[in-house]
């Protein structure tokens, strides 16, 4: 490869948001490592942070593919909450999931898919703004869960199969701290997270469905003219996203060993900004798995290090707000440059 080709590749790389977000992540980690007296890059902290990333990371993948298609899904936390609440309740009432979590997951995925289908049906048939539709369904699903179905908190009575699945550890890190022997479990839920990332990346980059999402996000009319069945693609997208939300919700139930119908409220307000920060455009058509993972890592590292570096937890909100502003500004500036 010639030198000029190499330099143009470098140039192209520096133009991409995920390159910068990765740099930010590195710089921030170094900063925290220094401020916390070397407590960030320790096996136990890393294990803790990776654990915290699992659920948010999977939700971020869900948001990413929706945003690539030029949409917004505000309803995924409500879908997840209703799916896992209902699934856990059904399992509890029927005595399922005593030894393995399969029934719970299958139920949650199915319920999530059905709710997602409703989103998809409304969005694709009536060509409405996705943000408005999912804002509506979000409230509707939450109302359904709290009002009509009267979903209850399930804590101590959580089926054993779900609870023990949540305890699944890939390995345990032992550290000695001032004479105390501490053990940290590396959660098995990291595996679904990695699978989510790989699958999302594969779908977005290697399948025509994924390229369709980018195409629709770039220019919906053109995508239609190019021969994509945009209506069908959107329907499938929201159905899959609903099913995935149901799955992720169930993972969280297992990890937290409790099913709290209200636990997901407001989740979209931390996940969507993270995805935007990771390079997804609020206007659609842009965004990568790598950038999104980096952004989720930044947010998780910061929120997990507030205590370590001695920052008041009030600042967490300040920081989240800052991320929204930075992410949205970057996204808007990029779109402006693109359309010039």
């Amino acid at each position, binding site marked *: 490869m010639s030198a000029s080709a190499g330099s143009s590749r470098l140039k*192209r790389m520096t133009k991409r948001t995920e390159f910068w977000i990765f740099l930010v992540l590195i710089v921030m980690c170094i900063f925290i490592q220094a401020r916390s007296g070397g407590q960030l890059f320790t096996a136990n902290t890393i294990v803790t942070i990776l654990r915290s990333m699992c659920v948010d990371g999977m939700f971020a993948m869900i948001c990413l593919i929706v945003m690539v298609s030029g949409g917004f899904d505000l309803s995924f936390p409500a879908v997840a909450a209703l799916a896992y609440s209902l699934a856990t309740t059904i399992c509890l009432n029927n005595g399922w999931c005593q030894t393995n979590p399969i029934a719970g997951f299958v139920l949650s995925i199915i319920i999530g898919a059905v709710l997602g289908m409703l989103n998809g049906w409304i969005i694709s048939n009536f060509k409405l703004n996705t943000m408005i539709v999912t804002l509506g369904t979000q409230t509707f699903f939450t109302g359904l869960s709290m009002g009509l179905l009267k979903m209850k908190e399930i804590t101590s009575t959580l089926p054993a199969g779900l609870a023990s699945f949540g305890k699944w550890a890939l390995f345990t890190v032992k550290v000695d701290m001032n004479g105390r022997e501490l053990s940290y479990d590396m959660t098995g839920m990291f595996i679904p997270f990695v699978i989510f990332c790989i699958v999302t990346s594969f779908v977005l*980059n*290697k*399948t*025509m*469905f*994924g*390229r*369709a999402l*980018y*195409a629709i*996000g*770039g*220019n919906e*009319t*053109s*995508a239609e*003219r*190019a*021969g*994509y069945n945009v209506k069908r693609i959107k329907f499938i997208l929201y159905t899959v996203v609903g099913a995935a939300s149901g799955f992720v919700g169930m993972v969280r139930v297992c990890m937290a060993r409790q099913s709290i119908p209200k636990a997901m409220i407001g989740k979209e307000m931390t996940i969507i900004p993270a995805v935007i920060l990771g390079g997804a*455009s609020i206007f*659609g*058509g*842009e965004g990568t798995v790598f950038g999104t993972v980096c952004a989720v890592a930044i947010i998780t590292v910061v929120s997990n290090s507030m205590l370590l570096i001695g920052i008041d937890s009030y600042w967490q909100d300040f920081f989240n707000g800052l991320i929204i502003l930075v992410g949205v500004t970057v996204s808007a500036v990029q779109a402006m*440059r*693109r*359309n*010039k």
Partner: protein
Amino acid sequence: MSEYLLEMKGICKSFAGVRALDHVNFKVRPGKVMCLAGENGCGKSTLVKIISGVYTRDEGEVIFEGQPVTKITPAEATRMGIQVIYQDLSIFPNLTVMENLAINSEITAGVKFVNRKRWEETAKEALSKIGYNIDLYAKMGELSVADKQLVAICRALLFNAKLIIMDEPTTALTKKEVDALFTTVRQLRDSGIAIMFISHKTEEIFEISDDVCIMRNGKNVYSGLTSELTPDQFTYYMTGRELTNDRFEPKNISREPVLKVDQLTLPGNYENVTFSLRKGEILGITGLLGSGRTELALSLFGLNNPKSGTITLNGSQVKITSPMKAQKLKIGYVPEDRLTEGLCLQQPIADNITLASLKRLSNALGILKHQDILDDAQIWKEKFSIATDDVRKFASTLSGGNQQKIVLSKWLSNDLDVLILNGPTVGVDVGAKQDIHALVHELANEGLAVIIISDDLSEVVTNCNRVIVMKEGRIVGEMDGDQVTEDNILEIIR
């Protein structure tokens, strides 16, 4: 084998009882450029959509390569070799050139997975069709309009296109880019492809087309060889009326200049610009793209502050630092891109007309007087014969020419001394163009000082009694009266 690639006979199409196409006949010859001309709303796009299979015809006969075609679907049209390049080019600005080139054929092939290598080969093949060279990995959105257009053409060629329909391809192009596009069009024509070129620009049509089909109100009023038509006949067929190309004769020029610009300089934009303007004059400022003409205009309206030099207005020296200041000094500006800079399309016509004079139309507390706004708008509607039945309708419901009239009236509804028009008839069809020109003449004769900035030389020549030619930021020539001719200007510009 028929002499014609595509023949359409007696095509009719109605929407909700309104007849959009009324027994339209036309023929496309292979290896020829055919122009489909007509004013906005004459049924051109409906006809294109019938050819490309988006709409189904109500009656009529379609014959493609000698074979009658009963029903056309978009997929069928593609298979037959019909490709439409829409005005927006149907590209994906967020994807690379390679992806833009290959994605359509991949979708048509019905594959499920992405094969980078095959995409790249497809893209290279597409580019090779017209010998066009561009970075395959560049983001589409970062290309110029001309490059985007070439990519769109290459993409169309991948489908073994026999007929390429180009919907107003020259709208956003500079003269130079238009020339380049025409070279490509001729190249395609010579390789045996039929081109259907949709336009309303007289000069372009005469330059590029072999055949022409002119439509008016859903009927085709002329089809035949372009060479058998004169520009005047062409305009007549388009608009249905005889248009007089009256040159502007100043009748009412003031003795003292209203505006004097002395040694105005903004490095990188323009340098040492000196000129004066009297009431009743129409001054043309022309030059190629990048000659500094637009930058100068923006400076006069407070949008591009000059570094040095002076501006004198009615005898006193002024600094124009913002559009607000310019308005206060009774300077009006009508931008080049009327759609993005001059109009709120999703707002009522009345609100658009009165936008710059709200101060006059509100009471002491700043509360708007709605009836006054409507009355004001009504006056301008009549004065400019804006084609609408209700000024409360959205500006987007109007055609380009009428939109331009709104932008003009927006500024004129305030009492002005100087009116700057930047490319006042870009994208406006020929009938509306005449109306606008006549109006500007009238305004000048009523005592307004007008500056027209344009690269459309015929426009400059018909409308200006005096012309300044700019080149690379400097004034390189000035002429007035009979000296103002296209040849004289061209001589200086080149």
